[in-house]
């Protein structure tokens, strides 16, 4: 049986003007279990709090009800007050008689009567309150960044700089990601490699950063502060620690059939290769699909020529287990496959390329050494047609409904670069809208139009075809002129829509992080918590959360790093004690609660229970209190009522309802 104290605040005249506070205190004093009731001008003042503290001690109160302003205002204050007198802070309930009573009801009788009812509801609730203690769990002071593109690198660097060890896991043989494949960056036109490679080197050399390249996440267990991750280091067949990066092996390799991924297969590479000159680590990898040694058992030229004895055909995948306090997803993006967009002839005509391919064509380290040559015959193109929104903003179901965000700007960049280097070309850009909301973006676009004379045509390309004489013809509509156009083009460059990397989906499952229908990671709150996933301890960096350009990616990467640093700086995590709790005697183990939990806080275990009819092994739900946020979705999904929410238990809410409806 509780001993409850009721404290009615005047809030100066804020409450007292509309509510007869003395009467409220007196009426509530007659409620069962109430042993003390008082009113005071400012309950939140030091004197008011002292009044509460004294009353708790003198009356051995086990529960406190404060009738005052909104709990959103002073619940924390009064909980602390109670704690100072040795009462569990969760034995305090607030009756909101200011915002929800005195401020909105003018009639004194009405407001007083309502204040009494609200007080009664709070008393009814506190009668069923139980002391709650916030759980604590230690924090492993190490972070994992999944993805080694600019987002991952930046996040890792920022975390490492703050003094915490951080591991980057990259599935490709090198870090660098998409940005490494870019030629110039908009709107400044500085060289991507020039600004990225120093960061790559920095990441590689940082004492707090460990790189796991050519590696994938195998398994994620645990929860915020205590993730246990298995990383699969795929066999490179080259020992990283022995390899000097001389590159002799790559030259000696007789196989030359492998498409060079870095150049999007616009040229070929050996079976043993370093993705690109500035790759980090600068260690080759063997493509077993192409390698003669693997295919036929004969060859081994590379091994013979390796002075460092780094090549090992018998190397196996290796599983590394590591514990982390926080995980950052930075899995990036890819252009979509254009299989469904036959009208652009991408599959048919070699001179129809994607923007990313074009990026490589323009790049000095690319397949054409930076000379603008068309893939079919290596001749310099004279007429170039850029098509925007290929698959973006597409509601037909073939592409993506969202805007890929970066295409308008890189197309302007490409057009501008072409026109600057090759003034004798004609460049057309077909667009639905040109979107330039960014610093110096619209200026950049206008330069393309005004200074470089790029022909921007509002309209969509209907078909790219061969006129029979070996000329690519582009049929399009000009919506502004309201006419059909046919342009004979030497090259067509398609701004393919972007999509999250395919591996993100399985990763999200492992992380129990939610994804939207486009497979972008969902943020914990779209406005207020954009770099956190709803799963505690999992953070989002870069394109995997939504389309972003480089500066946005870098700023989000930094933001994610700050969140990680904030988490890792704690020695222990205090969890919200108002979390779900499963009654093992009642739980049927049906898994319904697990299915609605947005945080993956519920797992199942086979446990021995005895509900009075004998011992039995049952499958029962277990709530991980460190992961549960206390939303209560599970409590309604549970038909047996085994799942309840501490601090907002069903019986407490019933009691409130009963008190209000009395």
């Amino acid at each position, binding site marked *: 049986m509780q001993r409850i104290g009721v404290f009615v605040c005047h809030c100066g005249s804020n409450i007292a003007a509309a509510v007869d506070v003395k009467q409220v205190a007196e009426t509530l004093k007659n409620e069962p279990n109430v042993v003390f009731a008082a009113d005071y001008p400012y309950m939140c003042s030091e004197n008011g709090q002292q009044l509460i503290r004294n009353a708790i001690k003198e009356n051995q109160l086990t529960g406190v009800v404060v009738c005052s302003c909104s709990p959103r205002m002073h619940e924390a204050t009064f909980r602390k007050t109670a704690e100072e007198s040795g009462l569990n802070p969760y034995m305090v309930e607030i009756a909101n008689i200011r915002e929800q009573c005195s401020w909105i009801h003018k009639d004194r009788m009405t407001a007083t009567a309502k204040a009494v009812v609200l007080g009664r509801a709070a008393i009814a609730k506190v009668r069923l309150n139980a002391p709650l203690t916030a759980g604590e769990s230690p924090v492993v002071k190490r972070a994992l960044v999944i993805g080694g593109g600019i987002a991952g690198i930046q996040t890792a660097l920022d975390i490492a700089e703050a003094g915490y060890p951080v591991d980057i896991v990259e599935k490709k043989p090198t870090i660098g990601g998409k940005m490494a494949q870019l030629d110039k960056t908009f709107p400044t036109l500085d060289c991507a490699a020039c600004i990225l490679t120093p960061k790559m080197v920095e990441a590689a050399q940082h004492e707090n950063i460990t790189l796991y390249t050519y590696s994938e996440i195998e398994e994620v267990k645990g929860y915020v502060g205590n993730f246990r991750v298995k990383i699969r280091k795929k066999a490179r067949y080259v020992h990283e620690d022995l390899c000097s990066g001389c590159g002799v092996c790559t030259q000696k390799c007789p196989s030359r059939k492998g498409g060079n991924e870095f150049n999007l297969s616009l040229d070929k590479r050996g079976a043993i290769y370093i993705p690109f000159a500035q790759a980090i680590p600068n260690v080759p990898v063997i493509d077993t699909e192409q390698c003669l040694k693997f295919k036929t058992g004969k060859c081994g030229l590379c091994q013979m020529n390796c002075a460092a004895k780094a090549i090992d055909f018998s190397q196996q995948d290796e599983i590394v287990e590591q514990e982390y306090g926080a995980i950052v997803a930075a899995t990036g993006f890819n252009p979509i496959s254009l299989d469904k967009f036959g009208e652009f002839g991408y599959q048919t005509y070699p001179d129809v390329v994607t923007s990313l391919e074009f990026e490589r064509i323009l790049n000095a380290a690319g397949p054409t050494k930076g000379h603008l040559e068309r893939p079919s015959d290596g001749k310099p193109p004279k007429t170039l047609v850029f098509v925007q929104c290929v698959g973006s903003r597409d509601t037909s179901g073939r592409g993506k409904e969202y805007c890929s965000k970066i295409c308008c700007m890189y197309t302007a960049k490409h057009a501008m670069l072409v026109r600057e280097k090759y003034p004798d070309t004609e460049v057309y850009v077909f667009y639905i809208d040109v979107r330039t909301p960014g610093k110096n973006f619209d200026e950049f676009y206008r330069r393309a139009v005004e200074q470089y004379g790029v022909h921007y045509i509002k309209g969509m390309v209907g078909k790219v075809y061969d006129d029979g004489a070996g000329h690519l013809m582009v049929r399009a509509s000009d919506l502004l002129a309201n006419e059909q156009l046919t342009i004979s083009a030497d090259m067509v460059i398609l701004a393919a829509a972007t999509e999250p990397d395919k591996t993100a989906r399985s990763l999200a499952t492992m992380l129990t992080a939610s994804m939207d229908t486009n497979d972008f990671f969902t943020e914990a709150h779209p406005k207020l918590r954009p770099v956190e996933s709803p799963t505690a301890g999992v953070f989002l960096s870069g394109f995997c959360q939504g389309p972003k350009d480089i500066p946005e990616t870098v700023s989000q990467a930094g933001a994610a790093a700050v969140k990680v640093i904030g988490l890792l700086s704690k020695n222990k995590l205090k969890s919200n004690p108002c979390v779900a709790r499963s009654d093992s005697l009642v739980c049927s183990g049906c*898994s319904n609660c697990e299915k*609605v939990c947005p945080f993956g806080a519920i797992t199942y275990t086979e446990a021995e229970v005895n509900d009075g009819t004998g011992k039995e092994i049952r499958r029962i739900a277990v709530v991980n209190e460190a992961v549960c946020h206390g939303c209560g979705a599970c409590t309604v999904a549970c038909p*047996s009522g085994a799942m309840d929410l501490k601090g907002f238990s069903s019986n407490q809410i*019933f009691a409130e309802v009963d008190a209000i409806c009395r």
Partner: protein
Amino acid sequence: MQITKTIKKLVSEGKADRVFGWKKGELGFDTEPALFTEDFDSVVYNSLCGANLCKYMINETKKDGTVLLLLKPCDSRGLQLLTKEHRVRREKIYALGVPCRGKIDVDKISDKGIKGMIDIQENGDTLTVVTLYGEQTVPRQDVLYEKCLSCVGKEHVGCDEVLSPELSEDTTVNDRFAGVTALEEKNPEARFAFWRSQLSKCIRCNACRNVCPACSCVKCIFDNPSSGMDSKANADDFEENLYHIIRSFHVCGRCTDCGECSRVCPEKIPLHLLNRKYIKDIHKLYGDGDEAALLTFTKDDAEPSVVYERGEGHA
């Protein structure tokens, strides 16, 4: 009998060591669920085997060994649900689907004024009812259970083996949702009167709950004094409403529409009309995917105001 042969074969092959099926009852026309460890010749399967056996598996699979379970098409969906919700150990069951051409509701025969019934013989589409006063014939279709007349389908799901599926017959004559639609078309006062009249007959015997394959909770909230919801008796009309509203809500998205609730009700309350209302709404609002409707969502689901905006007497 084909079933007996199959059972004996499966048991001899070690697929199962006991059988859950039906056996003949005390009268010529009743059957009862039973466990057989031997004497498989006394396993009975005929048109009088209306009971759904899948829920017995909750207790049965706690024991050692494998049970051979006879399942009608509608029962197989119940077993699927129990499996999905981890309420049975599926690996301890050999699920043998048996054909179904609808089951006979003995009460419907009585309702025809036939008294002193002592046996029922089935000849194709005609039943011969043997009574103290002589024999009478009844068209089989006339006396099928309500649940069989609006059957979801005769396809077994998730069985290890289905015996002679070609012997199953579609018995559906009514649109499954016709009863729901008819009620929806009434005005709220008429609906209220209908349900108040029906539900006030309830004696809270809990047969509907205890037979329901979706009501498989270890402890029902209505029986749990600490749930704050326990209500054992029909102490008030409200309790009836509460019990049936909440029970239907708890099986919402999980109900397999096997019709057992209505079959077992001694007061003949059409409880399936509650469950089917949810099923109909789910189909209409969320499509008829197999995932439980309350355990998932889409971002553009209908707002609760669709109910509010619906006109009176909507269909």
